[in-house]
């Protein structure tokens, strides 16, 4: 009941904040958001990892299952359940969500100066939905939360965003909504294909049945076609969220237009929904398809890394740069996931958390700079280090974190992914893919250094009719917290990596399928 408590409290907080006067909304919301934060940390402390929640021998912490309703198809019944719980994959993301929300709320105090109560209420609402996404283990329930994230996000971009916010918001909404529906079809084709092999929509049960090879035929598709079909639909659906090239174009628009705290949430948590889902669905439920098509998936990952980085290189807007680099960073995750090695999958999951922190940090910094200068264009300012030493210091630190500087979490994540994918026996010529993706670390250094040189260093010049001064403490403080977390995780990744490993390791074992669907023979 712990998770329900957090969910209910967050929802109640959101409603409370909606009703509160604008003046207090920010502080109130921040205060209230400490409760889910503390709650999730308590869960973490109390967490004893025990395998993957989706596998039969996995041990789900804080699980609670209540039947919701049953629906009947021709010959079988499916029970929808309220089914929540966490394992080593979801818990770090849950904590990431609560931490980033609180920090994002603090970082909203300065830039959000209109309709505060609505803003903070929506932020809390989004937190609620995100917590739901990472804790629910029933497909339909999960899908409710998954889609529910869109609504607050739409408003947050559309109301408090930049000049083209309406376009960006609707693009985000339509694009991701379409993707969700596609994914939904894919998932239900599988569920129908499973027929009475499952009696609930619990992830565990679906994964178990799929991994046990109980998929039958559906819609005229034999099992092997069906799983490929479903895999593709799921993959496309999630790729939009991640986003992977070529499904990424909503992201830069959304990011650039969104206000800072929303960008923080968008990059920090929302993108992780996609990779989280990929891990949960494509790579856990249909691992054999993923293995069979590993080269293609890895190639998409590498393409995202390099292409995203190249795009970032061409940008002039700091926020766009960070936005595109997110695409690049998420490409690594895909590469790690498809490697099917302990460090590959573990590193990918670690990268989700790490990138959440680092990109959150970067967006916050860019936001603080924007608050001070009212511009984000690289050409419009220079020498900010002169006026905002702390902010710039964090900018530099964050950028290096993004570049994968050792002893910061980004490095740990990336190197783990590289180690994992290099050794992958699933991807043919894995070293080539790995080396290709790794070149991203050079390009990322290129554009971030370039941006830093042009904006932070040199002689101070910004065209404003007021004096550019240092940022207030409440703008700086969340960034320090993030930086601290990044460094702590960079020095000791095992704080979360151990739990992650526990959860993803079982996924790497070759399947004990009765029949290999592709070769018709036995799997080794």
């Amino acid at each position, binding site marked *: 009941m712990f998770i329900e408590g957090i969910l209910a409290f967050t929802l109640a907080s959101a409603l409370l904040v909606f009703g509160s006067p604008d003046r207090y909304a920010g502080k109130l919301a921040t205060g209230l958001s400490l409760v889910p934060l503390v709650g999730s940390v308590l869960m973490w402390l109390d967490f004893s990892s025990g395998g993957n929640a989706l596998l039969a021998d996995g041990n789900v912490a804080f699980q609670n299952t209540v039947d919701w309703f049953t629906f009947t198809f021709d010959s079988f019944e499916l029970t929808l359940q309220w089914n929540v719980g966490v394992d080593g994959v979801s818990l770090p993301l849950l904590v990431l969500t609560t931490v980033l929300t609180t920090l994002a709320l603090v970082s909203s105090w300065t830039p959000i100066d209109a309709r505060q109560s609505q803003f903070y209420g929506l932020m809390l609402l989004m937190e609620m939905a995100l917590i739901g996404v990472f804790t629910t283990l029933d497909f339909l329930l999960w899908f409710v939360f998954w889609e529910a994230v869109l609504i607050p996000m739409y408003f947050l971009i559309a109301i408090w965003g930049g000049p083209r916010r309406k376009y960006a918001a609707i693009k985000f909404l339509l694009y991701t909504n379409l993707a969700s529906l596609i994914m939904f079809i894919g998932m239900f084709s599988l569920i129908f294909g499973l027929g009475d092999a499952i009696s609930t929509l619990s992830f565990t049960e679906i994964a178990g049945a799929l991994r046990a090879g109980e998929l039958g035929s559906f819609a005229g598709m034999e099992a092997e076609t069906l799983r490929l079909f479903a895999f593709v639909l799921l993959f496309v659906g999630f790729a939009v969220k991640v986003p992977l090239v070529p499904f990424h174009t909503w992201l830069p628009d959304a990011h650039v237009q969104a206000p800072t705290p929303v960008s923080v949430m968008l990059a920090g948590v929302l993108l992780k929904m996609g990779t989280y889902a990929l891990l949960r669905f494509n790579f856990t439920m249909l691992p054999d398809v993923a293995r069979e098509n590993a080269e293609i998936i890895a190639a998409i990952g590498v393409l995202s890394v390099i292409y995203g980085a190249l795009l970032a290189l061409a940008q002039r807007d700091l926020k766009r740069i960070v936005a595109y680099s997110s695409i690049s960073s998420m490409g690594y995750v895909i590469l790690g996931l498809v490697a099917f090695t302990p460090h590959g999958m573990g590193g990918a999951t670690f990268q989700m958390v790490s990138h959440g922190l680092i990109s959150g940090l970067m967006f916050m910094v860019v936001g603080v700079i924007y608050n001070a200068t009212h511009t984000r264009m690289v050409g419009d300012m220079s020498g900010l280090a002169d006026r905002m030493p702390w902010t710039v210091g964090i900018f530099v630190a964050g950028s290096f974190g993004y*570049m994968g500087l050792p002893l910061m979490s980004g490095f740990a994540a990336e190197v783990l992914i590289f180690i994992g994918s290099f050794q992958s026996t699933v991807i043919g010529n894995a070293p080539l893919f790995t080396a290709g993706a790794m070149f991203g670390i050079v390009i990322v250094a290129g554009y971030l*250094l370039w941006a830093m040189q042009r904006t*932070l260093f040199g002689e101070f010049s910004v065209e404003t009719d007021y004096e550019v001064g240092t940022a207030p403490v409440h703008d700086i403080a969340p960034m320090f917290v993030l930086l601290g977390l990044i460094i702590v995780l960079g020095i000791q990744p*095992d704080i979360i990596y151990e739990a992650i490993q526990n959860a993803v390791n079982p996924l790497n074992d070759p399947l004990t399928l009765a029949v290999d669907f592709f070769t018709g023979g036995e799997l080794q």
Partner: protein
Amino acid sequence: MVDVFNFVEAIALVPLASFVLVLLLGDRMPKKGAISGIAATGFSLAISLWVVLDLAMGGEVYHEELFTFVAGDDVGVELMFGLLIDPLAALMLTIVSLIAFLVHLFSLGYMNDEGEIGLRRYYASLSLFTFSMLAFVYSNNLLMAFMFFELVGLCSFLLIGFWFRDDGPPSAAKKAFLVTRFGDYFFLVGVVAVLGTFGTAAFAGEHSFIIEATHVLDPSHSGEMNTFFGLGEQAWITVIALLVLGGVVGKSAQFPLHTWLPDAMEGPTPVSALIHAATMVAAGVYLVMRMYGFYALSPTALSIIALIGGFTAFFAATMALVKQELKQVLAYSTVSQYGYMMLALGGGGYVGAVFHLTTHAIFKALLFLGAGAVIIAMHHNENMWDMGGLKSRMPVTYWTFLFGSLALAGIFPFAGFWSKDEVLLETLQHGLSGEPILLVGYGFGAAAVVLTALYTFRMVFLTFHGDPRTETAEDPEPIGWNMKFPLVVLGVLSAVAGVINLGAIKEFIGEDALFLKKWLEGKTLDGELGSLSAKEYHHILESDYAAGYEVTEISPLGPGALALVLALIGLGGAVALYRGSEPTPHMTKLGRVRTLLMNNYYLDEFQVWLATGLTAPLARAANKFDQSGIDGVVNGTGSVSMFTGQRFRKIQTGIVTNYAALLTMGLVLLLLVFALMGGWF
């Protein structure tokens, strides 16, 4: 006696503590944090010396895993941090902490006394650098080495860009980081490959990847490793070795990634002394030494190293000839000297390389600090043609600088002579026995000796001799004790440091007097070091399954004499050209060659072109494709929908008769379709 190894971690951690302290409280500390840095580096120096002493007295090599970075959870590779302190590391620790200590002292004069702002940042970065460098040195595995290697790069970035308000330093800092990052990319691939191949990246211990690799190749042992792409074992080892070499080439500023180093001179001069001469640049070379047993397995890799080294030594020297700024000359000289070390490593001269690393650290740090003193005196004017006649006006600087120059030029009996001789000798010895590539390297190296002496003394003459050519040179600013002291210490050292390995005259003093060689061969001066010893490396080098080098025994005297003669020729040339009160700029006579050299063979332009001429347009093209292509499809879908919507909307004409007609048509259509399909009537 207390076991020094109980707190050997502190060698690096104390500077780290200093970093944190200075970062948080720097502005309120005496001398803006300098004292803290001096104390920390002094402490590190003391411990390092103690470690050296301990090892020399027969202490065991220290090798401990200390910290689990990532537990492999029994299925994946386990990543650990650990310390490996063997004679090589101990020596390097001493060098680093010594130079760091002296540079901190020097900074008191160079930075504090000049009233620079941002000293907190400066000292914090210096401390961080010291920490990273020391940690790099005693890393016990390749991954940890890589991590600190990168951190060192960060510090270099921060320190080069110290004067961020100007345009030059940030740009140089960016370039430095980017170019080395390019090398590090290959390094990281190498690290990952090592982990993927051997499952471990440890340098030492029974299951170090070096030993594993040896065992795989050595027919008398059995070992296993993964290979990729169907390559043979030795070929794959070569690939890995070359990948790691990418990092080395970048960090040690070897051709073609040397371009960042001269630019890095935009940083404060003490930083140049510490980072871009004595220590960080040495990290690359040190890395090859650290895993020399691995490189020794691959003749191809060795040849490439030798070739790169020799070529760089010569190539950089040519550019140093024409430079007008004091620090530029020194920068190219640094590149050139590291070329020697690479040459030695490629040529099988492990000891020679370490030796040259040591002496070079001392005399190049000295030269940079001396240059720093001159720059202060000249109010930050670095152009040598604006100097002249400083000899009498700043004698301490002059004499120490002269010692350093003599060492650099390789003049007997200064430190540089011995080490450079060792480098050339060992390369020649191996080259003569059927390794033509080494001979090519040797040729480059020998030619570079002449050039080295020539540019060094061109520099000395232009700076200190003759008549002052500007008013500042007429009346230079005096420098304080805090700058002189490091100069004197280093001056003395560069005169006498050669004594640790007087290889050229070993026939007279006997093998036992080659202290460095013995140091590297055994953990004590008479013990055994196992796989990390120079002897073992030699053994591997000469094994058929590995490099298969052979040694042609020749007397070291001959090549020594040759090197000295070559150096003297260069020196003589410099004397002939630039002596006198009003030296003429002879290098202009080189005409277009000079232009080429001044422009560094247009390599910078090439690299800039790679970045802005090739990558940037590519990125813009990608961006354009993204905006119009991919996003065009997305937005196009929207537009088409809108257009369709508009069309559909117009169906509703508002005239009810039309509705009735359309309704009827719909009905008739349905009827027709069904009538045809259902076969009515």
